[in-house]
């Protein structure tokens, strides 16, 4: 007979509920009887749709978290923020260019940053949010893009900022500018695409299409990797490419498609 988890008390939308310890905030909300139709997505900490504001008993501070990634505590008082309002001036990536003041022109409020670091302290991804806003302020688009690369746009930073900066939108524009204008073109890629378009690989692809799922899996498991070049840059977006440490669980993918 399995042991029952002890019940704790949390306050949700101004009402107390007894829920088992060890649940995530999201699971506790559902245990309490709510159905989440907003503010819930991947449940894996990646989609950024479940930002939550809460206080702890005996602590005057406001805390923030992703509801799917944080365990409920006794005495917790919480409220869901299904999204953080975001208004930005529209821009056309084909007409703007990556100048030193491009980010400042689109988001003049970044000049109001007082470097209090509240954004960084609230980021569930552990990103140096204030540092990428500061990089944006001084026109270092590349650094802003790389430092904000793992942003999931949950908006918690923006909900806490005393200067009302829209951090995640600034990072998004920085990454767009970086991707479109600053990253180097890969001549090998263009060559390979041209070769595919002229039909150089059609015979091999046709042959693959005739294979069974088992044969495909066997081929997949026997695949080889190019040795990844050693890179000094810890922020390199390509550092993990060509690595045998494939982050994708390919077995699952094959099961689904097979």
């Amino acid at each position, binding site marked *: 007979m399995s042991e029952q988890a002890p019940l704790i008390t949390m306050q949700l939308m101004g009402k107390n509920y007894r829920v088992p310890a060890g649940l995530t905030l999201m699971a506790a909300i559902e245990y309490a009887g709510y159905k989440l139709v907003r503010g819930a997505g991947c449940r894996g900490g990646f989609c950024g749709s479940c930002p939550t504001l809460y206080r702890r008993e005996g602590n005057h501070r406001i805390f923030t978290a992703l509801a799917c990634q944080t365990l409920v505590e006794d005495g917790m008082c919480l409220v869901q923020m299904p999204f953080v309002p975001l208004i930005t001036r529209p821009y056309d990536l084909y007409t703007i260019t990556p100048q*030193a*003041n491009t980010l*400042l022109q689109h988001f003049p409020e970044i000049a109001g*940053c*007082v*470097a*209090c*670091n509240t954004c960084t*302290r609230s980021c569930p991804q552990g990103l*140096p949010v*204030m*540092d990428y806003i*500061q990089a944006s*302020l*001084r*026109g*270092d688009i590349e650094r802003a893009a790389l430092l904000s690369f793992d942003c999931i746009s949950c908006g918690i930073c923006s909900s806490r900022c*005393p200067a009302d900066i829209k951090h995640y939108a600034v990072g998004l524009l920085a990454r767009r500018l970086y991707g479109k204008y600053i990253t180097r073109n890969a001549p090998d890629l263009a060559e390979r695409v041209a070769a595919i378009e002229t039909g150089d690989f059609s015979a091999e692809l046709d042959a693959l299409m005739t294979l069974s799922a088992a044969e495909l899996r066997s081929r997949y498991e026997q695949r080889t990797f190019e040795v990844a070049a050693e890179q000094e840059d810890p922020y390199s977006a390509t550092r993990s490419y060509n690595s045998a440490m494939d982050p994708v669980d390919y077995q699952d993918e094959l099961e689904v498609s097979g």
Partner: protein
Amino acid sequence: MSIAYYPGCTIKVSAPEHELAALAVMRALGLDLHEMREWNCCGVVHSLATDNLIRHMAPVRVFARLQQQGEREVVTLCDMCFNTLARANQVARRQPEQMDAIKATSGDELNYDGSAEVLHLLQILRDRVGMAAIKARVRQPLHNLRVYPYYGCKLLRPTEVGLDDPEAPTVLGDLMAALGATVVEGNLQTRCCGAYHVVNRENLVAERVAATTAQARANGANVIVLSCPLCHFNLATRQSTPGNALPVLYYTQLMGLAFGLPPATLGLPDATALFEEALPTAQHAQAVPMCTKGER
């Protein structure tokens, strides 16, 4: 010798030529400036409100980061950054209880005891390198230049953080003399350029710029030299004599020219090739519109 370097946002966005020239000139003098690994805006303006501590967080964080990066001294080019950082440092030293409040507000992550030091590049040049060493490095003396040094406010005021006599400063003049230039003086050298009033009181700035440039011309100057990127913006873009504006250069750029460094390494536009030719003879330097910033 290598010193930590704090650029500031304005240098990066609006005055990259000053940085380019400064780094080139310091290399030529055997001094390496290494940019802080991570830094934030200095806070721009020193807050005079005694209870507005959040306005001191940015400069205090610069010092805290400097110490985290294993440094005690940092040099800056921007007069505004210098002034804001130096005044925040005074607060840290005189009112440690305010640092305690900032520390508490930051969730205990921002901890600074006031023991770091901010220096302006002009202090390094004057007090560490020395005018004699600068003079010795000159390859192409600026004999034909008549230079009007413009100081503005932030280098000099308030007195406690100013790096020179607030009424009769000499550092830029001494530097220009060391480069072989003739120094032209005037009582408007230390008057405020109008600063941020350029945003909403353009006439005020235009009048001040007109008075300063008129005095420089009347006293025979053919170039204005300064240090502050904000003064540079006002003086270079608000002269009302298009096509015949008095050139406005950073002292680092003139040092580079005197050291014989290529103009391209000093952030000087192509048009200044003319100016370079003029260096040995230089009678027509006045007519050369060197600063094209206004047309950007």
